[in-house]
């Protein structure tokens, strides 16, 4: 009897520490934020002293041109970055999916950029983009071209390039893993039937990799909304609002403008956006699983 109770309690004992930490430091803060977003709140007040203002913060934000600009910068940044990274990453994976010496060394070197701190990535690129001492402008001038105003007029593009440098390897590695786990039989059959390399890529490899690619793309998209430090170090959101992505605007609203309520409302907008993406990813994997199960039962019935 006692043994049975003990066994029944086991999973809860295993879950308890994680559950406690996550409730205290993740779920409660999120609820606290939702609560705070309906209040007029500055950092000097505790939340009990603040005034309830209903949806005022949300409405103000909705009509705030700076917030809209920031939202559009964020969306542009995320879409361009993920799009370019998917194309380059998958392209490289298709190109490098060969049996060559030193592949593991290559992969190790490729993942270096995403392991080092975003802050460091930001400072590296800020140096390279520097108008006078920076590597790029020095190179351009040494071959007789005009220097480019990287972090001035072309700030968003420069930030995008830095992010592509850092995160393309992520897509490359996942796409390569997907390629190498493809069923050999399908590729073999295509080769015997005389498919050209292009046909193999378009009609066999890409469709078979699709499930992994979609999950990768969504994962990367979610991460693209989290980027903050690289941009903070490189441009501090400027010039003007040209690179002020939402995460940066939240942190500035909270610390510089000292409007925690508005910052909380903004966080909620961002959270809703990410929630939709996560739900999409979740729904997609569920559909995929269901489809596979159906195919499997169909195959078994055929036997």
């Amino acid at each position, binding site marked *: 009897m006692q043994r049975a109770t003990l066994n029944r309690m*086991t999973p809860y004992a*295993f879950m308890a520490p994680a559950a406690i930490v996550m409730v205290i430091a993740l779920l409660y803060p999120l609820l606290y934020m939702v609560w705070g977003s309906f209040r007029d709140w500055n950092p000097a007040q505790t939340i009990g002293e603040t005034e309830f203002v209903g949806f005022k913060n949300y409405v103000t934000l909705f009509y705030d041109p700076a917030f809209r600009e920031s939202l559009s910068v964020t969306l542009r940044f995320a879409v361009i970055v993920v799009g370019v990274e998917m194309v380059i990453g998958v392209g490289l994976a298709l190109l490098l999916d060969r*049996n060559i010496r030193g592949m593991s060394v290559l992969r190790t*070197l490729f993942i270096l950029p995403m392991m080092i701190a975003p802050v*460091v990535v930001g400072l590296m690129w800020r140096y390279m983009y520097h108008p006078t001492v920076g590597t790029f402008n020095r190179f351009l001038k040494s071959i007789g071209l005009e220097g480019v105003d990287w972090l001035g007029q072309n700030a968003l593009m420069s930030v995008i390039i830095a992010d592509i440098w850092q995160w393309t390897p992520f897509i490359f590695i996942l796409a390569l893993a997907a390629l190498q786990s493809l069923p050999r039989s399908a590729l073999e059959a295509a080769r015997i039937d005389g498919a050209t390399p292009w046909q193999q890529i378009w009609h066999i490899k890409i469709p078979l990799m699709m499930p992994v690619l979609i999950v990768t793309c969504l*994962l990367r998209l979610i991460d693209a909304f989290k980027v903050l430090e690289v941009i903070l170090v490189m441009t501090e959101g400027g010039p003007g609002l040209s690179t002020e992505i939402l995460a940066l605007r939240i942190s500035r609203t*909270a610390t510089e403008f000292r409007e925690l309520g508005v910052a909380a409302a903004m966080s909620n907008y961002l959270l809703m956006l990410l929630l939709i993406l996560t739900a999409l990813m979740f729904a997609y994997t569920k559909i995929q699983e269901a489809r596979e199960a159906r195919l499997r039962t169909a195959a078994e019935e055929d036997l």
Partner: protein
Amino acid sequence: MAKSDYDRQNPAFYALLAVLIFMSVGPIALMFINSFKLDVDIISGTSGLLFLPTIQNYETALCDILPYELDHLDFCSLKFGGAFINSLIIALISTILTLVIGCMAAYALVRFRFMGRDAASLTTLMVRMVPPAVLLVPVFGLWNNEFCIDKATLVGGFIRDTFGGRGDVCLAGTHSGIILIYIAMNLPFVIWILQSFIVQVPYSLEEAARVDGATPFQVFFKVVLPLIKPGLAAAAIFTFRIAWNEYLLASALSDRNTKTVPILIVNNMSEFNVEWGVIMATGMLLAIPPIIFTLLASRQIITGMTAGAVKG
């Protein structure tokens, strides 16, 4: 296929590889080289490798923990050494705790059927996407105002004496405050990665141990844990990387004594006159631990990265 059976490739292919390697490692190498240059050399543009390497930048950065006095510096303004130690403490403790708590939870989610399992697993999946910026406001408010222990009570005094922090003993400004949020932030990810490793442990092994009279905890620590070591390594590196590199929440929560390295770098960057040499040296010091991990355990990192996405 035998190891020596490599396909022969065309030279253009190797040229492409060289370009790719140059592109991915080049910026890091550039920073490494520049960290050994004096500011004069960096600005005057004596490009390439023609310069006299100096460790002066590193000395300036670490001036507060060096045992000897520096000639070129009359005042040690950059307290980098202390920040480095803070970063180490925070990253190491939060990594260890996250791993222990996370693998227990992952094990429960994989192996047991219990009430609330689906809810727990769904919550874990959902909170994985919460960005640090979203946590900034609530964490700032809670850690400063609510997660406090009154100064007068015994526990408050004890915590203040042990962990440091401000007089009113709130979580903000202490190492433990930052560690707590890092654990919470990393837990969903760690649970998610470890689940995919625990599923692969054959259930018959656990059953055999149980028949021999092992309690669930013994089964977990003596049978399951040793078998998922690669997964633990991958999870440890990812957690360490986030805790070591994180800037935003640390900057909101730390005080003068608990600053971490990223905060110091950002603060120095935003000053008007950037001392490139010293900044590069601090950047390099921050980048070195993750680089070492990557070189040592790239296989585990790649397995960890692909574990979730490729298997769906």
